[in-house]
Structure formats: structure tokens, C-alpha cells
């Protein structure tokens, strides 16, 4: 079933469709919350709060094409509200405590290298400035377009474009500057 139909069924109040929608996006929402909030328990609470908000706004939610940016905007606002309420800075969780869902098929040796690189990357991400981290989160991790990012973050498209380049370079430099990165960042070929 395509997303448009799933949303339509959710709007009609079909519980099964709603359950499917939650299953479809829970990984993404929890992942984004985790990046913002930094703590799995808090991220779980905020993710739940996000879905309750989505449920309340189902009738006014956009069509399939704009659903993901809309959903991620709600998620981002909920995370920022949570941090504001707690007056807290995001914490950094060790990646070992979190299971990321998607990944290519690799042999055990390659998988171990990829995991250690992901760990480095996750920690390097926490060292970025808030704006750069958000842009990397939305563009490189969640796969939004620059136009969608400019809408979510309420910044001009040109700013989103130039910041996106800068943020990626900053992340790559942070990775290089991490002492643990020695010898783990060579690409094949």
C-alpha cells in the first residue's frame, strides 16, 4: 500500500492503518529524537509524544509528497521543546547502547569496521555546531532536499545550500581530528 492511501485510511480513523504508519516511521522518528536529545529513554518519550501530536493533526497533515518534512518538523519542534523544558544541552550516548536499523549487507570483518566508523561519526556529529548538526541530520541522515531543509529550519535556500557544504566539511574535519580515527578512515582504491 502506498503512503497516500495509508494516510487517507489513517484520516478515516482506521486503527490498522495508523498502526502501520507508526511502524513505518518509528525508527526514523526515534533515530532523529536520539540525535537531538542524546538519551534513549528521553528520545523514546519524545518520539511517543511526536506520534500523539501527529495523530491529533492527522486531518490537516499534507499528502504523501510533503509528509516526511512535515513529520520531521513536528519531531524537531518536539525535541527542541523537550530540551527547552529541561533547559538541557543534548547528551551524548554511546552508540553501543543503540541499535541502528538500516545497513548494507557486509561480511563480519567489514561490519566491524563499519560499526567502528559509525561510532566515530556519531561522536564527531555531536561536536558540530547546532545549526551544522541539524543540517547534517536532515540532509545526509534523513535525506531531505535543500528546499525541504530550508522550510523545516526556516532559513533561506541559499543559506541551506552553503551551510550544507560547510557542515559536511566540518564533520569530515572533526573525524580526521579524532585521535581514534587513525588508520580507520582509509577508503579502498
Amino acid at each position: 500500500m502506498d503512503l497516500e492511501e495509508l494516510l487517507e485510511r489513517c484520516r478515516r480513523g482506521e486503527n490498522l492503518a495508523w498502526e502501520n504508519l507508526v511502524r513505518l516511521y518509528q525508527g526514523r522518528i526515534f533515530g532523529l529524537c536520539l540525535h537531538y536529545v542524546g538519551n534513549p529513554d528521553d528520545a523514546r518519550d519524545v518520539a511517543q509524544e511526536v506520534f500523539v501530536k501527529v495523530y491529533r493533526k492527522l486531518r490537516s497533515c499534507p499528502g504523501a509528497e510533503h509528509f516526511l518534512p512535515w513529520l520531521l518538523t513536528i519531531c524537531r519542534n518536539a525535541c527542541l521543546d523537550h530540551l527547552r523544558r529541561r533547559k538541557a544541552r543534548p547528551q551524548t550516548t554511546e552508540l553501543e547502547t543503540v541499535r541502528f536499523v538500516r545497513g548494507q549487507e557486509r561480511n563480519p570483518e567489514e561490519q566491524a569496521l563499519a560499526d567502528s566508523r559509525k561510532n566515530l561519526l556519531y561522536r564527531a556529529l555531536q561536536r558540530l555546531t547546532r545549526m551544522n548538526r541539524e543540517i547534517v541530520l536532515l540532509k545526509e541522515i534523513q535525506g531531505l532536499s535543500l528546499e525541504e531543509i530550508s522550510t523545516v529550519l526556516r532559513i533561506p535556500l541559499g543559506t541551506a545550500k552553503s551551510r550544507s557544504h560547510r557542515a559536511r566539511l566540518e564533520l569530515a574535519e572533526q573525524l580526521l581530528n579524532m585521535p581514534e580515527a587513525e588508520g580507520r578512515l582509509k577508503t579502498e582504491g
Partner: protein
Amino acid sequence: MRCEEFEQRLAGLTAGRLRDPEEDACLRHAATCAKCTRLLETARGDCRVEPPNGLLESVLEQTTGRACGDARELLCDFVDGTLPHGEDALLKGHLRVCPRCRALADSLEISHVLLAELAEADPGPGFTASVLEETNRLPQRPEQSVDALLAFVRSLFLRPRFALEAAYVGALLLFGLYGLIPGEPLQPKFFSAGPTVTEMHQKATRFTSAAVADLSNRSRSLEILASAWTKTTGETLRVYSATTFVELEGRYAGVCTWLAETWQNARFRAGREWNELTDGRPGS
């Protein structure tokens, strides 16, 4: 053939201009002489001579400086594979000789591949069930328009520029209403057709004083008439004394001040009352 003769014929040999016997003689000599063989290879471009260490760096230092800044600008597009062909070749050339930029490119490439794998995380068992439990408790209701309006107003307040914009609009309103001329009484500009508050207060005071003086004079005349009436008829007449009207003047003045203040808040209503008070006819 001697080496000197070989060198004289070298240009013709590499260009293929020699006759066959001459060419054979040259090649036979080259086969026996290591120096002339190297000379021939160099002339044909077969022999690459390694440049001395640091030559590139010293040339760049004296000309444009290192190209790392320009290379950095192109690295993201290079990793994404969206760089035009010419620039792609130039950047590859730079990456071959610059280990720092090469390392940055590697780091970008790794992050490009692995970041996408950080998108989804497993919230653990029971997450879906707890969300459904939470949402099943809520009645699904159409979004209220009031809610939408409140959300809009809230979003306005959350904008960082809202305070600046509000201050700007407030300042414009103030200047528009009251103008900027120093020393002038604060009087809304679009009310300037009528009298000012001060003028109205002065008029009211003048009117009250005149009215009280008139009543006071009449009262004195009445007092004289009443005393004459008492003397002739023996009956006592009750008359308000002139001092009563002087006391009343104070009260009228208070009323006038109150009217002036009321007028400042609701000009037209106060104006109507003022017309009634001064001309004795109802306001239009």
C-alpha cells in the same frame, strides 16, 4: 659511428626524417652505447625523469600558493559525483599530490556512505504498542480553527525576529499618531481638526467662571429683593446666597476637568457633551 655524429642526427632520427641506412647506423650505435640509448629514450619521451623533491611546492609558493582552498570547495560535489568532468580531472590531480586533501576526501566519502545508516534506530520492543495505547485514549477530532489560530499566534511568538518586528510596528504607530515635534502637547494627529484638550479645558473654565459670576450677581439681587420683601411684608424668603455659587464653581471646574479627560479617551462623545454644555442645544 661516433657519439658526436649520433647527436647531430638525433633530431632527424626522432622525427623519422633519416634515410634507412643512416637510421640503421644510428640505431646500431645506440644499441652499443648506453649514453646514446638514454639520449634517444629521452628525446622520444620514453624515459620519464623524476622531478626533484619540493619543486612543485616551491613553484606554487612563488606563484599562486597551494590550491587546497579551491579543492575544498569542490570536495563535496566530487564525493557526490556531481562535479563537471574538467574540474573532476583537475581535482583528482590535486588529490594525487596533496595528502591532506586526500584524507579529507576519504573522510567525506566515509561519512557520506555511513551517515545514511544512522537514520533509523530501533526504539525497542513495546514502543508501537505504547503509542497505540496512548492514541487510542484520544478521541479523533477535527482540528479546531481556534487551535489553528492559537498555533499560528504561538508560532509568531516563537520567531526570533518577532520582538524586533513588534517594536518596529509600535514605533511606527507612535510616530504616526503623535508626530515627532518636541514641545507640542501629546495629541493624536488624526484628531487635530478639533480643539486640543488644553483649549477645551480653558474654555470650560471660562464658561464656568462666567456662569457662576452671573448666577452670583443674580443671587445678590435676589438677596436684596428678599430683604426688601421681608421688611415690607414680614415674611422670610429662602434664597441661595452668593457664596453657594462660589462653592459650586469649584465643583463645575472639577466637572470640566473630568469632561476634558473623558474627551481625550472618547473625543466625539465628549465633544457632543461639550456642545450641549456650551451652546445649550443637543449635539448632532
